[in-house]
């Protein structure tokens, strides 16, 4: 068995791994499929099976490999094909139905099937390049070109279940380097890099490590926060599913720097694939001697266990997370004492986010100054962001700090589908805010986002168009925070409930203008009085929407009108008899059985039965578009 007892051994193993990696691209045809949860949800497994099936019986030697998420989630399933002597081509939208053409044209044919190609996956280890063809490099794709990929360097490139692939791409070399460096010097390097915690608060990582290093105690814990509770975020999932060893290597470097012997990864149970790939990675690292006793002959002992979260947003908060590991209800504690002095089981504890760890090996290998040269102001380096909502190219990206929201939405994301107007962007999830379209030139860095009342948070970005009602959105977030409030402190427990009550009143058209000032007063009280970050940031979505979209609140209150036609109590649906072709799809889909109509006869919605769920609008064929919405009182429909 391969086991590295020192760094010389490690280099030997790496050389073998590199050779196997290079061979992958020169022997036989290679077919890679993007198989993260996003790809799998787009039927990537069925696609791969279909390719195997098509090729079986043809005596055509081919190798198959799974890779993580390259970030172009909108075009999934993604398949890369590397034929001998040709560059590796990435194809998008390869659903199982497309497979026969893919096999015919891209795999068996001499052609590269240019029409369907998203780009050439140029890797340093593949000698056939995009320059040989008229297909551009994938790295010049509009979604990838503005990116700098550090935390995501291997995502979508290597098989996440292969430690050899990670090694072949230089993995664990930073660990070997760190182990022969004094912990204090590593802390200085990380401080010099300007890296700040990617879990939300942006606390300088090097400084946090120093506190823990200096804390008294022989046993120190190191925790990786993989709770990713923000509904709308999937960066950490993608890193764990696409390149789990990068997180382990980061943890090992941190463990050496602070003097920890026990590591824990706290990962949410909603991410079964991430948990599975982490488990595989941990076993491989142990087998290779990269976890356990006397790692690479340095005398350092360190191992990592996985703790599965159990579905509570507040458990992403560090003190609540530790309470949860200890087996209690996940309720935060007052600080001080800080975890660095008394954390898990009252021992000194250092906690960092998945992405924070994923950046570390690059910082150790290339130096703090290099990392520090990327970014802007006090926000250094890159940030991974998840793009979703009303955007053409939804997916996962990593950009240098300081890039503007406009560049992200329009250059990278390709703008809003249907050329609708962008209304704004939500950053920081339920703890963040809604930044209106007028502020799209705001740079993405910790300070600039705070200036417009939002936060960077974990990096989720959800783009909204005119179809989103701001009041309903604020209500959605408060429903979430109110439900997730752990109940320990009064301002958060009662305050979020009262705020939600007012917001619901507004969406029903029953509020008056005095409710807006009440809402604002409450929001400030909750912000100032809450024990932890959940409560103190919960008012952000309300405060930013009140600041930037007040007229929309007033429209609901004064005129009973929801301009985006979302608030159920203020909207009714009806079928335009002139456009209806009586196809019956709406009647079949209507969960309330409120739609009736005969063959060749326009259908009608019974307003008393209608629950205004909007299913009919979503299913009415676009060429008919017979269903419309009106705000205000119910429309009586006559035929």
């Amino acid at each position, binding site marked *: 068995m391969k086991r590295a007892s020192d760094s010389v051994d490690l280099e030997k193993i790496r050389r073998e791994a590199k050779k196997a990696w290079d061979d992958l691209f020169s022997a036989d045809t290679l077919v890679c499929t993007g198989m993260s949860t996003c790809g799998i949800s787009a039927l990537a497994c069925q696609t791969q099976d279909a390719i195997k099936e098509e090729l079986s019986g043809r005596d055509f030697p081919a190798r198959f490999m799974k890779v993580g998420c390259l970030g172009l989630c909108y075009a999934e399933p993604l398949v890369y094909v590397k034929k001998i002597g040709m560059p590796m081509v990435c194809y998008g939208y390869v659903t199982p139905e497309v497979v026969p053409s893919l096999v015919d044209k891209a795999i068996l044919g001499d052609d590269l099937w240019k029409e369907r190609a998203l780009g050439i996956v140029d890797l340093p280890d593949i000698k056939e390049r995009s320059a040989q063809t008229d297909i551009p490099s994938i790295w010049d794709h509009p979604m990838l070109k503005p990116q700098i990929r550090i935390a995501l360097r291997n995502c979508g490139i290597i098989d996440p279940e292969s430690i050899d692939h990670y090694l072949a791409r230089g993995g664990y070399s930073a660990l070997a380097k760190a182990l022969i460096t004094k912990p204090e010097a590593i802390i200085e390097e990380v401080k010099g890099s300007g890296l700040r915690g990617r879990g939300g608060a942006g606390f300088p990582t090097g400084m946090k490590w120093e506190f823990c290093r200096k804390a008294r105690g022989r046993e120190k814990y190191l925790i990786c926060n993989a709770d990713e509770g923000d509904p709308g975020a999937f960066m950490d999932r993608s890193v764990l599913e696409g390149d789990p060893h990068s997180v382990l290597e980061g943890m090992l470097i941190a463990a050496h720097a602070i003097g920890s012997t026990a590591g824990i990864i706290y990962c949410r149970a909603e991410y079964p694939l991430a948990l599975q790939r982490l488990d595989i990675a941990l076993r491989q690292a142990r087998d290779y001697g990269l976890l356990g006793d006397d790692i690479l002959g340095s005398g350092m002992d360190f191992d990592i266990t996985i703790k599965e979260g*159990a579905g509570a947003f507040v458990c992403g908060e560090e003190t609540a997370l530790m309470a949860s590991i200890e087996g209690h209800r996940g309720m935060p504690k007052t600080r001080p004492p800080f975890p660095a002095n008394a954390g898990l089981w009252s021992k000194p504890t250092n906690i960092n986010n998945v992405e924070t760890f994923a950046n570390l090996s690059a910082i150790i290998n290339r130096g703090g100054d290099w990392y520090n040269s990327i970014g802007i102001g006090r926000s250094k380096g890159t940030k991974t962001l998840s793009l979703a*909502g009303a955007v053409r190219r939804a997916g996962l990206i990593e950009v240098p700090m300081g890039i503007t929201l406009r560049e992200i939405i329009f250059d990278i994301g390709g703008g809003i589908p249907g050329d609708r107007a962008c209304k704004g962007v939500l950053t920081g999830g339920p703890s963040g805010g809604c930044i209106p379209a007028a502020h799209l030139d705001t740079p993405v860095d910790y300070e600039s986002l705070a200036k417009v009342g939002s936060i960077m948070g974990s990096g989720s970005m959800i783009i909204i168009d005119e179809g989103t009602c701001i009041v309903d959105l604020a209500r959605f977030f408060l429903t979430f925070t109110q439900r997730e409030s752990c109940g320990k402190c009064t301002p958060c427990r009662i305050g979020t409930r009262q705020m939600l009550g007012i917001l619901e009143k507004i969406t029903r058209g029953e509020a008056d203008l005095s409710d807006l000032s009440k809402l604002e007063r409450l929001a400030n009280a909750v912000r100032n009085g809450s024990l932890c970050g959940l409560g103190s940031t919960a008012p952000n979505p309300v405060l930013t929407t009140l600041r930037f979209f007040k007229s929309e609140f007033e429209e609901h209150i004064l005129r009973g009108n929801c301009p985006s036609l979302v608030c159920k109590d203020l909207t009714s649906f009806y079928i335009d008899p002139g456009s209806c072709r009586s196809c019956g799809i709406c009647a079949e889909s209507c969960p309330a059985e409120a739609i009736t109509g005969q063959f060749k006869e326009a259908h009608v919605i019974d307003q008393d039965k209608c629950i205004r769920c909007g299913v009919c609008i979503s299913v009415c064929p676009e060429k008919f578009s017979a269903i419309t919405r009106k705000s205000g009182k119910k429309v009586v429909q006559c035929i």
Partner: protein
Amino acid sequence: MEAKIRALLEELPGKEGALIPLLQGVQSTLGYISQDAVEAIGEVLGISESEVYGVATFYSEFRLFEPGEHQVKVCLGTSCYLKGGRELLERLSRSLGIPPGRTTPDGRFSLETVACLGCCSRSPVMAVDGVVYGNLTPLQAKAIIADLDE
């Protein structure tokens, strides 16, 4: 039940912090946390039933009712909410005849909501028995369930 819990405990490093992993262990074998399980865990760990119950109800992962043969989880994260997650839920809830958080009387399906499956780039999504389906319309969602029912 107590013997089962003791067996689960054997696989853990110790009693410290064992409560949540035990609950997870029970849920993954039994499908939910039964009254017996609450009692047995309290007994084995030497803590009160109310403490076990308090922890079990704090976390949304734990189910206190028997789930259906097939577990349908509709995602209501921000992106799914904005892109039609509610409509999926509404449609499934009506066609299964149960509100979220319940199991059909024949025990075939249970319907739940989930805060986020982290699959926002393919919203709206749902998970059926752990398999995530993306970019769904209410009718497609209904069809996936109907296929399973055959």
